[in-house]
């Protein structure tokens, strides 16, 4: 259960300032960073590991690694991308170390919108189910890129930074994911027009 943490002292606390405080040995910097971004790295760790327990371990290791590596953060870009890069490496190391197949969390099927026409609602749910199933079938590399773009809201350069790969590789993974999803939807008898 998430416990509410003390809000930042001022809303102007920027990422660089938080990390600078961590580099200076101030534990409050780590608490504030967690308060600001805690949910998103945890969600990413869950997607990487597929396990609540392992995701908590990965998050703890990542926070510790962020603390120890705070001096190396140069303030170029958001701390979120920096933190997600740490989570990415820790998550992949954890799953490799335990040599477990990377479990995919079953994509949620969403909550029906009560204001919609029931018929339209059913169609919408069918489209969501088809896409969710198609997303579940993507490899970790391709799924994580989509997570970083659409849930974490990272730019192209930030995604490349997190995944420690060139920008071209990110574009290739997006392109491959698009082709895979398109094929999966076609097999399910759906077309892009159905998504409109």
């Amino acid at each position, binding site marked *: *259960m*998430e*416990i509410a*943490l003390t809000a930042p002292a001022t809303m102007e606390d920027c990422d660089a300032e938080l990390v600078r405080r961590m580099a200076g040995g101030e*534990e409050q910097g*780590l*608490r504030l960073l*967690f308060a600001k971004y*805690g*949910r998103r*790295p*945890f*969600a990413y760790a*869950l*997607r990487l590991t597929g396990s*609540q327990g392992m995701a*908590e*371990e990965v*998050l*703890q290791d990542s*926070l*510790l690694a962020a*603390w120890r590596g705070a001096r190396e953060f140069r303030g170029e870009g958001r701390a979120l991308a920096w933190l997600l890069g740490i989570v990415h490496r820790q998550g992949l190391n954890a799953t490799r170390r*335990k*040599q*477990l197949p990377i479990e995919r*969390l079953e*994509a*949620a*099927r*969403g*909550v029906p919108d009560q204001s919609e026409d029931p018929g339209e609602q059913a169609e919408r749910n069918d*489209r*969501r189910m088809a*896409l*969710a199933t198609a*997303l579940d079938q993507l490899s970790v590399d391709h799924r994580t890129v*989509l*997570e970083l*773009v*659409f*849930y974490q*809201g*990272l*730019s*192209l350069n930030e995604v490349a930074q997190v995944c420690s790969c060139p920008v071209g590789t990110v*574009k290739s993974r*997006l*392109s491959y994911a*698009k082709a895979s*999803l*398109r094929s999966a*939807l076609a097999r399910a008898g759906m077309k*892009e*027009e159905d*998504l*409109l």
Partner: protein
Amino acid sequence: MSCENGLRELLPFYVAGTLGERDRGAVEVHLASCAECRADLALWNGVEEAIIAGDRQLPPAPIAPLQGALSAVMQPEVGVAARTWQLLCAQIPLVQKEIWVASGLVMGLGFLLAAASGGAEGGRVLEAIAPLVAAVGVAMIHGPENDPALELALATPTSPRQVLLSRLLLVFGYNLLLALAATLGLLAVAPPELLGMVILGWLGPMTLLSALALVLSLRMGASTAIAVGFALWMVRWTAGGVLGQMPVFVGWEIPAETLVAIYEGFWRSTALQMGLAALLMAASLWMVNRQGDSLRRGGSASPSS
């Protein structure tokens, strides 16, 4: 319309709302006239909806990881030397106590026998006993039959290789010190110039037999490893007498004398034995890692798994 200008690659970021104003404007202008990109846009919109809907249902971040990180942050960082020392001290109670007592007793008796024999003969007594004592001890440092807490140990962050290396260092180091002490004790009854030869006489075989005992114990169990090591060592000391009685092996072209010379030459070549021991050691580290992974996956802890 051609999409060669790379705008199609920006569509996911356009949907996610992370494009700068200039790129966003360019994409919107392009979409007005490109049906293919509009089709891609529909797909990416659906993907965003599915991903956000899925991730909204994920549980919130628990507080425990932050608390764990803060606890670790408050502890002073431990250097490599200190961590190694901690690991070694932690392994001492996990090594069978009989190893310390038995090795000490046998080497003590061996020293008394060597001292009674005196001179070069006393040195040969130590050369015969020390490698076997070390090999028996090393055969008993790993495996479920020797370590009831093995599965618990594998659940810790310390790798199986580190555990094996630290135990090997403790047991082999202990036996090495015992052999050195016994050899130095021979100074009372043997000329000093003999000591170097005596040490070289048991150091290579001790290293090789210990490495062989380790790899065999990982593969076949401690009992088999000890039996094989014992048999090999007995052959080493009796081969000359037995082979020397046979002028030539039936069906072989090589005379027995040559075979004996090659065999005894091998047991005198410290460098060759050390090299072979290094290879066997590498094999042991590889095997123990595989066994550790197998146990973590719920496999068997038996030596042959």
